[in-house]
């Protein structure tokens, strides 16, 4: 009984230790994989991203940052196997609870912004252009180290499409992207 109580208090103290959400930047690396939607092959690859600028909070649980991302993807097909993307997008992060009051800070996030593709075709998908939009949706948690630094664990999906701006818009999807980030 004492052990259970001690464990409970330990977990509670980890969650509730006052840890101001004062980080300004983040750098993260990740790995993505997944079956392309409505196809029979897999995409996989690596991601390097950074939170370049953190705007003033919109409210007590919503922030927005300007993110830059470089990714390299490989498709499990015979042709058009390689793709590199470079994206710049605002990222909205909504915390479940006030992040200034908790050390462990789960959140949901979404971003949308312009992206450069190194190739117009990837796998069986044709985008007709090197210019597309990247949309990401996912969630994760920040774990505070101290008032200014934190670890960020994240799982999200990425969707590349040109929103119908060009003739072909078949879309490219990476369903599971796991990233590990360092906030400072």
């Amino acid at each position, binding site marked *: 009984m004492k052990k259970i109580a001690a464990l409970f208090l330990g977990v509670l103290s980890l969650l509730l230790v006052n840890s101001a959400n004062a980080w300004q930047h983040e750098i993260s690396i990740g790995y993505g994989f997944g079956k392309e939607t409505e196809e029979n092959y897999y995409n996989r690859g690596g991601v390097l991203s950074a939170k370049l600028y953190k705007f003033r909070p919109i*409210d007590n*649980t*919503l922030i927005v940052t300007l993110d830059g991302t470089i990714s390299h993807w490989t498709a499990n097909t015979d042709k058009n196997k390689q793709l590199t993307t470079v994206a710049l997008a605002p990222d909205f992060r*909504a*915390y*479940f609870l006030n992040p200034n009051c908790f050390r462990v800070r789960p959140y*949901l996030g979404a971003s949308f912004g312009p992206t450069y593709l190194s190739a117009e075709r990837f796998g069986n998908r044709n985008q007709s252009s090197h210019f597309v939009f990247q949309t990401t949706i996912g969630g994760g948690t920040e774990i505070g180290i101290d008032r200014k630094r934190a670890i960020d664990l994240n799982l999200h999906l990425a969707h590349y499409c040109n929103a119908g701006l060009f003739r072909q818009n078949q879309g490219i999807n990476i369903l599971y992207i796991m990233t590990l980030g360092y906030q400072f």
Partner: protein
Amino acid sequence: MKKILFLSTSLLLLFFAFNAEARNGIYLTVESGYAKQTNLPSAQSAGALRRENTASFPSAYRASVGYNHDLNCLLGIGLNIGAGRYGRETYYFPGGNTTLYTRTIEFLGVVTLHLRRVDIFGKAGGIRETVITSGVLAQDSQTDSRPEAAIGAAYNLNPHFAVTGTYAYVNGLSKNYNRLTQTHQDPNLQEVLFGLRYTF
């Protein structure tokens, strides 16, 4: 007369706003109710003996996650992402049956008006609509983007829980629906949903 009406409506809204329960944050919603797929081909055009709505109540299920940001104590804006399953229609052929229902993933912008303990909201956006068929004429499912609009109200039981009621309409963007024959086009959806919302 118009000025008096406008002034009294504004004063009434302001009165309710003073007690509005404005709240920023993530919320989760689960809903269920009635849904009908319309603009389906007739039994005759599909070559069937008859067509029947075989959905039992409830014929609609929806779960969503959203975020509300209050611009002031009266007005909030946000985003809602949901997944749903709607309707069930069966075509009876001599050799067997074919059943259709619709599955969606929804991305909707939301505007909320806070009035005391009641929120009035409107939603609009796009969905990914997939028609699932099974039975003798089963085909591979195909997904298309379609527009959706909804209007509803929520009664706040306390700062976290609210009961909701919503009417939603999805436009399948087709006048002649021939899903069971050659041309892939989607049904329209009409939904009446009741549910529970939890705000963090």
